[in-house]
């Protein structure tokens, strides 16, 4: 710079008009790149870069938000979503429906068996000696005890599993 011949010159004082003239020309007057065009291009580049920066920052911002923010909605994968997933699982639904069906079918079958046995027991009971009733052949089958003791033993026998009847018809 020191060997620059212009550097040794006295500074030339600019007139205000000259200064205005100089400030308005950032570009070479002979170039096709006019000041206006340069300003427009720069503005566009600035806007584009700002847009890209915003787009990048926006994307980055969404990422962090998803990472750290609690979203209580099911769609947002929030606290209720695993309940919903388990509550609407087709496999579990099918399993519960199946066991309900088994319960109902078995329940109906068991009820049929209850009524069947109820009726059968009534028929069997009708064949037995009614309380207090005496039959001559029954006495002999029991081992030959006389009737009054026999009657008592029957009752005791059916009440405690027949041990007394086994014993020979002694009232328990």
């Amino acid at each position, binding site marked *: 710079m020191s060997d620059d011949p212009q550097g040794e010159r006295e500074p030339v004082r600019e007139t205000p008009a000259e200064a205005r003239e100089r400030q308005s020309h950032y570009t070479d007057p002979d170039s096709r790149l006019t000041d206006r065009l340069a300003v427009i291009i720069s503005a566009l580049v600035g806007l584009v870069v700002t847009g890209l920066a915003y787009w990048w920052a926006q994307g980055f911002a969404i990422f962090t938000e998803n990472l750290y923010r609690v979203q209580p909605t099911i769609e947002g994968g929030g606290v209720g979503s695993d*309940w919903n997933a388990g509550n609407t699982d087709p496999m579990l639904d099918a399993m519960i429906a199946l066991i309900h069906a*088994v319960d109902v079918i078995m329940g109906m079958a068991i009820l049929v068996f209850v009524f069947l046995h109820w*009726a059968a027991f009534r028929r069997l009971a009708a064949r037995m000696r009614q309380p207090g009733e005496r039959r001559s052949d029954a006495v002999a089958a029991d081992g030959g005890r006389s009737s009054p003791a026999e009657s008592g033993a029957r009752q005791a026998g*059916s009440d405690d*599993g027949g041990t007394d*009847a086994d014993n020979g018809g002694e009232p328990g």
Partner: protein
Amino acid sequence: MTSLDHGKFTRVTTVFHSLLALDVFLLFFSGYAIMFNDELWWLVEALGGSMGVIAVHRVAGLGLITLTVFWMTLLIITPGGRDNFGTVLPGRDDVEAAIQDVKFALGYADERHPNARQFAGYKADEVPLLSYVGKGVVWIFAVELTLLMISGLLIWSKTGIISLFTTKASAMAFVAFHGFLGIVMLMGVMFHIFEHGTHPAFYPVEMKAFLPKDITPEYHAEDEDHDTTGIEDLELSPTWNWAVNLFGLMVVIGIVSVLVGSIFDETYPIPRELTVGGGPTNLLLTIGINVGILVLFIGLVLSMYGNVMRRRYERQLAEERRATTAADGGETSDD
């Protein structure tokens, strides 16, 4: 003639049956106090509150695993056990027995099929180890207990099952599944109590499951050649008539109520809104489910009564033996 019918089971079997009954009743009382807590709030309190009832259920559940594994091992390692496995397999006889039971109940058949007959009477040899209902009970128990034990162990730890099945709601589904599985057994056991508690020849309890076969007399009369079971020679208990009707009604109400309750008291899928159960709208269901629990309680009492009868009978046999010895020595005896 006696209402003490032919013995079919060994002492191991009868003791096992009593222990299994006690354990299963405890599981029913605690398990359905949890599932039907709206209707059986008093049972939850009686079993030590919400924590106590779960503890009872878990201890009884472990007991069930011990009993079941013991029984399976015995079935596999003993020749008698392996033989019995064959007799539990259902056959054509059992289907015929079921059909004949329908006919008998409707009055179209004169006798129950030997595979259905509970009171064998004179005909000990014709009656199989298990009736067709007995075989059904064994199979249902086998399948149900296996599934109940697996699902019960799975839901033992809620956090464990959440890690296995990803979500909390699926863990709840397994709890619900476990409860609904037991409903079949709950209904079946009510029928089982009815079947062996109200048979007119055995009322109030059939002793076959409590008296081991080695001390049960195998004869009913000198003359074994009879056409009938000889049930006509037995006298009906004076209380049988109303007892069978009352207990039958209770069993039907109990079965229907737990079935309806299992559908309406569903815990899966978990409702969006908090539903408050109980109240006057559920009064019938509350009464019905409590009747069902009462049926089970009667079953527990009958199971204990059967064992009391067994003790009394064993003591009586011992006394008889002593009396016989005394008679040999010259003393007189009543028997």
